[in-house]
């Protein structure tokens, strides 16, 4: 009978081994998938049993902290945002019912302490065995609250956004979108957010981060990219001369310059440098035609177009800048192989199919400011683990889209746009400012989208800014440039390196 008993034993052990295999499947293999199920209340609630790390501004002001609540024998750490809406776009929210957004989502591993080193991980397992609360890591951001405040005030009741970046490191100093929301309302008072309206745009979309998700035609602000391509390929120099008849001819049709009250401006003989200073469309139209769509877009791609920006925010909340096909109410990004669908003349001065985010334009400005070297934009400066260890996030180079010489030439051209051209409203006494205006037309009779991208001081840049405003009757020079100036001033007046 023993052979039969062995068979029965084998059958029994096989059943128990199957249980180990099935446990492994659910606890290791399928676990991440189950954690993301929307009805997984266990996952959602358990996140709040972690003493979530706090989030700070560069000057140490608390942006997100915990409110301790006891319920059902557990201690829960729910979020509070002491500054309300001021940093909502960057910090986001962490809630039970509406999950997470912003840094609360992208930095969740830090905030829940899941980023630990080996020693930290072992200690954490020890903590668990002892039943003590898991403490997340504190996240220190690079946000400059003065700049946040000033940008928010300056944008006022407009629908728009502003991004400020430190060119040498990629640290994001300001990320502002208007209208915005109070993250403290997300959990209990969502109706308040739903009811937000704006006099300047409809729908107000307060949860849309216009700085990273808003797609707008860049208009003349894109001319710096066209100029970068023109100079960097060696096909043109700042002194290349042009004749402007007030229009350029594209596919046999005239494309006119910006119209003032007397009709399209006509500049006659001029150089590339003065064309950028005075934002002359016909010159850039002809450069675009000479370079062709492929070269133009290849340079745009070097600056990060057609890719998700490498910023430390949730990637599904980031829009890609590039050529878009508009079909019905839908926007579809064209792939690089479809560059030819664009019209090089209009694309060269930022019209036609081109749509960009303020973040992308700030990256362009910061890259020119940093001698053509693009740094990865980031909000998280450093992380303080619960054991006191500090993890610094080092600046990372993304690439070198243009030669340093090209960047120097572009800087000089952008400086004259502020000192003598369309961007004079961005002048700061005693500081050399480089900038470029943009006034994108959205169709005849429609209000404009206005832009200003800039950096200062031009000789040793500490800040690069992009500002966008929706539905404007004025130009980039009159509407967006003053806002960019205030943001740059706020950052320049804070002591250098006080926030690192």
């Amino acid at each position: 009978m023993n052979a039969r008993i062995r068979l029965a034993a084998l059958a029994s052990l096989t059943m128990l081994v199957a249980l180990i295999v099935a446990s492994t499947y659910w606890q290791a293999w399928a676990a991440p998938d189950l954690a993301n199920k929307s009805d997984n209340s266990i996952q959602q609630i358990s996140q709040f049993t972690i003493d979530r790390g706090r989030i700070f501004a560069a000057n140490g002001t608390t942006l997100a902290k915990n409110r301790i609540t006891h319920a059902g024998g557990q201690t829960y750490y729910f979020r509070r945002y002491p500054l309300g809406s001021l940093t909502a776009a960057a910090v986001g929210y962490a809630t039970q019912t509406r999950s997470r957004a912003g840094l609360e989502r992208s930095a969740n591993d830090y905030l829940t302490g899941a980023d630990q080193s080996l020693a930290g991980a072992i200690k954490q397992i020890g903590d668990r065995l002892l039943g003590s609360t898991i403490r997340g890591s504190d996240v220190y951001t690079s946000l400059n609250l003065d700049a946040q405040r000033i940008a928010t005030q300056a944008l006022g009741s407009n629908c728009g956004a502003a991004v400020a970046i430190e060119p040498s490191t990629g640290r994001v100093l300001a990320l502002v979108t208007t209208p915005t929301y109070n993250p403290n309302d997300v959990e209990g008072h969502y109706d308040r957010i739903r009811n937000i309206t704006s006099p300047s745009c409809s729908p107000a979309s307060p949860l849309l981060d216009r700085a990273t998700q808003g797609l707008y035609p860049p208009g003349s602000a894109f001319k710096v990219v066209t100029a970068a391509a023109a100079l960097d390929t060696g096909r043109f120099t700042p002194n290349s001369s042009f004749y402007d008849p007030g229009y350029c001819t594209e596919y046999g049709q005239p494309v006119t310059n910006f119209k003032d009250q007397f009709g399209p401006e006509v500049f006659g003989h001029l150089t590339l440098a003065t064309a950028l200073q005075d934002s002359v469309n016909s010159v850039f139209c002809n450069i675009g035609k000479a370079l062709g769509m492929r070269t133009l877009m290849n340079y745009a791609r070097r600056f990060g177009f057609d890719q998700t920006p490498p910023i430390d925010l949730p990637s599904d909340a980031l829009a890609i800048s590039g050529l878009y096909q508009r079909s019905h109410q839908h926007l579809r990004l064209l792939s690089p192989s479809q560059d030819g669908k664009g019209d090089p003349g209009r694309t060269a001065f930022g019209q036609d199919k081109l749509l960009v985010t303020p973040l992308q334009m700030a990256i362009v400005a910061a890259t020119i400011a940093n001698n053509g070297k693009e740094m990865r934009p980031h909000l998280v400066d450093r992380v303080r683990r619960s054991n006191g260890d500090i993890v610094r996030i080092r600046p990372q180079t993304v690439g070198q889209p243009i030669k340093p010489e090209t960047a120097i030439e572009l800087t000089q051209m952008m400086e004259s746009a502020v000192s003598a051209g369309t961007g004079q409203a961005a002048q700061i006494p005693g500081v050399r400012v480089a900038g470029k205006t943009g006034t994108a037309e959205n169709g005849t009779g429609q209000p404009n989208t206005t832009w200003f991208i800039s950096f200062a001081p031009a000789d040793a840049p500490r800040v690069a800014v992009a500002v966008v405003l929706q539905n404007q009757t004025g130009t980039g020079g009159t509407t967006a440039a003053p806002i960019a100036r205030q943001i740059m001033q706020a950052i320049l007046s804070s002591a250098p390196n006080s926030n690192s």
Partner: protein
Amino acid sequence: MLILVGLITVTGFASVYIARQNEISAGSLSYAGFFFALYLIAHIVARLTVPDADPYLLPMAAFLTGLGLTEIYRLNPTDALRQGLWVVIGLAGFAATLIALRHDFRRLESYKYLFGLSALALLFLPALPKIGHSINGARLWVRFGSLQFQPGELGKIAMIVFLAAYLHSKQEVLALGRLKDFGPLLAIWGCAMLVLVATHDLGSALLFFGIFLAILYLATSRLLYVGVGTALFLIGAAGVYETTAHVRSRVIIWLHPWTTQAVPCPTRGGLLMQRQECESFQLVKSLYSIAQGGFSGTGLGKGTFALTNGKTIIPDLNTDFIFSALAQELGLVGIAALLLVLMLFVVRGFHIALLVDDGFSKLLCAGLTFGFALQTFIIIGGILRLIPLTGITLPFISYGGSSVVANFILLAGLLLVSQRANEAR
């Protein structure tokens, strides 16, 4: 060995206590000490009555009950107190069984029909008016005052004794396949199956069926019986599936616990909702709990089992679903360890069956051990979606008095057989 188990239990209780000190009194640590003393007494009884028996089984059972008590205590301290009382009764039953049968348990063989009939009687008890009591639509309990008891658990042991004894005495003739020898066997076992199916106790029905086939095979060596039995079972199951909505629902839950579209919810009058919000709610939430444990678990006392308003997320957590609570708090590491202890228990059980030299003892011991393994598989396999979920208890660990008492008697049976096996050598 026992000391080691004592230490683990104390650590477990201490861990729960530290993690949840805002609601649990410091006196709780004395629980662990109390149970340690209790097991020491059980150990001494075992040493006196069955000195040569397998030394590993009792500590393993102590570990499993200790773990179960710890988790029940963590989920609901009042239940743990009651469960503690049942452990005392179970250990008393353990000691009584050992003392009563210490000379020769094989005399049980001559009372085989008594065991067969008492198995039936125990299964029938809950169906009787007045003392019968039904929970969750299954009428499995009897009630004496405030104590509830599920006699089917003891019926299982009685049934195994009957099957082992009957099949041993008829071993040779049954192998010939003469139909008339199957008469009493099929009569008693068939009645048991009918009762179980009628009372919706599908898990036990499956368990009884599996035990029956296993002992039949062990006694007759005819795999054909197993094949025919399985075929009959499948036909029967298909019939029940067609006729019983309750069974159909279990299978649907097993195959498709998640739906993206709303389907009619039978328990809410056909209201359209996603299945994971309705029929498969318990299974799905339990899977979330298991997945939440991940590799290393949340730690004892730190798992999430209630909403922030205190409402329990998974129904029946401390009885049938205690595995998913343990899986969340102990993680894959802990669960693998737990399953390894269960495997060791099974290995020791079969080891005894191999060593002992008479047919009845072999059948009894192998039958008890197989029943233990199969019961574990049916409940955990159901929770892990390997097989359709049918509610039965997890041996030694689940909250439930009858289960604890029955398993301690099972343990005593294994030790008695082991004593006999080792004595003879």
